[in-house]
């Protein structure tokens, strides 16, 4: 606190360093961040009737979490399960492919000084600034000419591009894979791809996990693209399906199923939150090491 105190002492005494003002600010931030999630959990336990009649931030009525979950999975011949499966498909193929392409490309940009490298880099960085949504409508028009709309490919193919992922691998690989190690592998006679698979991939681990996680979130949460590409509810991802369930609650032939929307929303966010919590050590170190410098 005061300049007269020896700094070493300051660093050692943890009680001295706690700040009440900062703690209060952080608690407010945390309440703000968690309150809607708390609302979701609490209201997933209510019947449709008590949703309307009770205070939003406390439990009320019969504890119906289980029957809401069962209702979510069985409503409309189990369409929700289709949506869950579709989302998984889009994530595994789309985000998985995006991660592989970004890893290869980012590594190539970081470790090889090939002719045209600067041009490639400028184009890709420029593409980070091209808003995905601006491309979505023309992509739809192009895909409908090619007969790809209303198929899983319409969602998967555009998800394969992740300029930001490539940028992350590029910055990460610059530091994480020492050029001396590559030179040594070359002297030992290992080919470039063998070096990549046996040595570089391991070193790139945290960076790849980070890129994969952000690609997974982007695909899991994707809404605009499947909304315009997919007409058949059988191919909806969870996000579009949930928004359709909400929409059917208003309008002329209103059939509100708010309790199922809320339980479905909870089921939609659980896997991704769990993935983040389980892998946090890896993706956080990947983000720090590959973070933007200067």
């Amino acid at each position, binding site marked *: 606190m005061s300049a007269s105190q020896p700094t070493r002492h300051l660093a050692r005494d943890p009680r001295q*360093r706690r*700040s009440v003002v*900062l703690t209060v*600010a952080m608690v407010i*931030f945390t309440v703000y*961040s968690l309150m*809607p999630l708390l609302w*979701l959990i609490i209201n997933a336990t209510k019947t449709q009737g008590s*949703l*309307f*009649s009770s*205070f*939003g*931030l406390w439990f009320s009525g019969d504890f119906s979490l289980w029957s809401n979950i069962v209702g979510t999975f069985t409503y409309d011949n189990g369409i929700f399960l289709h949506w869950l499966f579709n989302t998984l498909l889009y994530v595994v193929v789309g985000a998985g492919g995006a991660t592989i*392409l970004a890893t290869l*490309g980012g590594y*190539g940009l970081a470790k*090889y000084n*090939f*002719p*045209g490298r600067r041009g*490639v880099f400028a184009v890709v960085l420029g593409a980070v*600034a*091209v*808003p995905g*949504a*601006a*491309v979505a*409508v*023309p992509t*739809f*028009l*192009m895909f409908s000419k090619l007969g790809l709309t209303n198929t899983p490919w319409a969602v998967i*193919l*555009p998800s394969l*591009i992740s300029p930001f992922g490539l940028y992350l691998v590029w910055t990460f690989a610059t530091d994480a894979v020492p050029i001396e190690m590559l030179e040594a592998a070359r*002297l*030992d*006679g290992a080919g470039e791809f063998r070096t990549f698979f046996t040595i570089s991939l391991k070193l790139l681990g945290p960076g790849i996990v980070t890129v994969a996680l952000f690609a997974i*979130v982007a695909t899991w*949460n994707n*809404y*605009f693209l499947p909304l315009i590409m997919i007409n058949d509810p059988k191919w909806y991802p*969870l*996000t*579009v399906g*949930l*928004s359709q369930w*909400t929409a059917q609650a208003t*309008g002329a032939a209103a059939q509100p199923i708010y309790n199922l929307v809320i339980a479905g*929303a909870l089921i939609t*966010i659980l896997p*991704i*939150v769990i993935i*983040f919590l389980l892998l946090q050590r890896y993706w*956080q170190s990947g*983000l*720090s090491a590959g*973070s*933007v410098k200067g």
Partner: protein
Amino acid sequence: MASMTVAAAPPESGSSAEQALRKDRKRWTGWLFITPFLLVFAAFLVAPLAYSVYLSLFQQKLIGGTSFVGLDNYKAVFTDEKFWSALRRVAIFLLVQVPIMTVLSLIAALGIDSGRLRGPGSYRILLFLPYAVPGVVATLIWGFMYGDKFGLTASINDLLGTHIAPLVSSWILLSIGNIVTWEFMGYNMLIFYSSLKVIPQELYEAAEVDGAGAMSIVRHIKLPALRGSIVISIIFSIIGSFQLFNEPNLLQPLAPNAITTNFTPNLYAYNLSFAGQQINYAATVAIVMGVITAVIAYVVQLRGSRKETM
């Protein structure tokens, strides 16, 4: 095996032709790594962009079908009051929401990095969680909480005697701003925090030797180190604001009077192509928005990096 012997042999024993070949092959190896990405990039980003430029030069007429009209669609955009009011709306949104969110994210990142909190790691992960929540779900939750059906806003009004109505037109932009801030504050915090983590320890030690206090360390070491990530985060936020779609689109059924079909430029383009069947004009609107966004992002990036060198 052949390449192995060549590589292992001392330079003078290999023929110069072999060496040149090897060098040349290595020169192009980078292309092998980047080509798969570029192919997908060309097919699903460059091609749709080019196609939409092509589309924007045509018009569908009731009689005579599709015909080439040159820049007529662009002229129409510039006098289209629906487009400009949408653009004004997202510009106002941008000017209010982005600074608030950026400052809040900065405070959170500096707080967690300060070493003056108990369990900083848990704040970091808890604040980040909303980013993992799909925008659809986030909007649903906030939409329900805003609405009077589920009692939360009504309960607060009863309790405090206020008349908060988040879904009427005078409040709706603020209500959407709150949702967007909730979704992305933690993400920006984490990006800032990662940049703070890579500040070399020696800088702090030097500052302590100079007797610098916490605030002056923030001002002279941490904020300058954050400049790059702040610029990037602001660019992403600008792109996000100009492309605003999910939140207004999902809130629309709850607030039909407040959210019009041209509430944001993106919503306008969407409604033009899917409800209005005006595909060519929709492509033009998307291109104009893309160009405006790119220009502003570029200017911000230029200004950001110029300050850095000063």
